[in-house]
């Protein structure tokens, strides 16, 4: 789903390396990833201005020498990995969060990307079962109650109800009231005759 999709930008001029990275990174097992290739420093900055990728994989010799420092300063949250075709000297490596070598196997690349994206496992949340409280809240939501009404009925704060609803959406991967109603009926949290549909 949307929340776990990792956006990766690739800045590399050699087409074999760029296409190879795009292909390899785009089909890592169990990781939904969106890849974007940029072909010049100008495109890189335009892209970073209009999109917010999680990770940039860049050839250390891409663009001007100062570009990487410039990216760092402008986008402090972006993780930057170097693509290493030949061994990089230590001094060069210091500028990067990680180094992806063309000799790395799929698993190693997977681990590096997971670490950088700070999403150690992409999908564990959706495997968590719903708590009884969450089920109760679903049944009230689909009966048409507002967050305030639910809060009053269950003696919770509105803030807590909203947190529960966010967790429900995340666990079920359902983000709309109609979707939730379908879930609630099929799983017998409510009876269809109770609903004003």
């Amino acid at each position, binding site marked *: 789903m949307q929340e776990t999709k990792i956006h990766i930008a690739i800045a590399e001029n050699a087409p074999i390396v760029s296409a190879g990275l795009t292909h390899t990174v785009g089909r890592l097992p169990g990781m939904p990833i969106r890849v974007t*290739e940029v072909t010049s420093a100008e*495109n890189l900055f*335009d892209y970073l201005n209009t*999109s917010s990728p999680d990770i940039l994989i860049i050839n250390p010799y891409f663009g001007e020498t100062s570009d990487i420092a410039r990216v760092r300063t402008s986008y402090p949250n972006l993780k930057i990995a170097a693509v290493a075709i030949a061994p990089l000297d230590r001094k060069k490596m210091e500028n990067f969060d990680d180094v992806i070598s063309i000799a790395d196997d799929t698993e190693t690349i997977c681990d590096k990307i997971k670490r950088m994206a700070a999403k150690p496992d992409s999908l564990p949340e959706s495997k968590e079962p719903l708590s009884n409280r969450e089920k109760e809240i679903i049944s009230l939501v689909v009966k048409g109650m507002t967050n305030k009404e639910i809060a009053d009925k269950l003696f919770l704060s509105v803030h807590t109800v909203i947190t529960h609803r966010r967790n429900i959406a995340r666990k079920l991967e359902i983000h709309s009231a*109609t979707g939730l109603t379908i879930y609630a009926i099929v799983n017998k949290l409510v009876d269809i005759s109770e609903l004003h549909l």
Partner: protein
Amino acid sequence: MTRYYSPEDKMITLIAEDYPLIQVMTRFGIRMGFGDKTVAEVCAEAGVDCNTFLAVVNFVVEGFTTFDNSRQLSIRSLMHYLKQSHIYFLEYCLPLIRRKLLDGINLNTGDVSFLILKFFDEYYREVKTHMEYEEKTVFSYIELILNGQHPANYKIATYSDHHEQVADKLRELKNIIIKYCPATADANLLNDALYSIYRCERELENHCKVEDYLLVPEILRLEKGLTSNP
């Protein structure tokens, strides 16, 4: 950058090698029946900007990944193409899915099947609102830029990145059908509806990428030009 296809290639070669390109052709207003003419000839006859057509074609072929502002596109041609895509989704693709769903799910008030249709209708309205916003706000802004004006209250960067939701919601619909559809549904008809949803989902993602990776970079370039020579 290497381009897969060039103006001297025969139009039929493109289509024979990559059949999804017939969609691109149609949206540019190029009809079948072009015989053995080259891309340049077919475009000239249809009044289509050949360079823009090939930019979209090559972008599709290389897998929708390259963000590049050096393509030198005709922005009006590209907007025309995008408007035709909107028409395709709103007037053809999504209504067809709705009909297929209706055939497949065996509408019955005793279960959730009508809610699945309701979910779809809500989704349709969202896509429609989104595409209308693009045409009213974004495309109108681009028209102003093309006429040399630079409205201060909008920047093309505002527009990107809220894009993926359109395709994500379709994923949610698909999952709901697969996980919760009542057993009364006709399996083959429902599979057919699902196949159409999968295809539409991919087409929507790709459509959004044409906007983000072809249109947006061109507009950024124009915006920069306007700020540097006031």
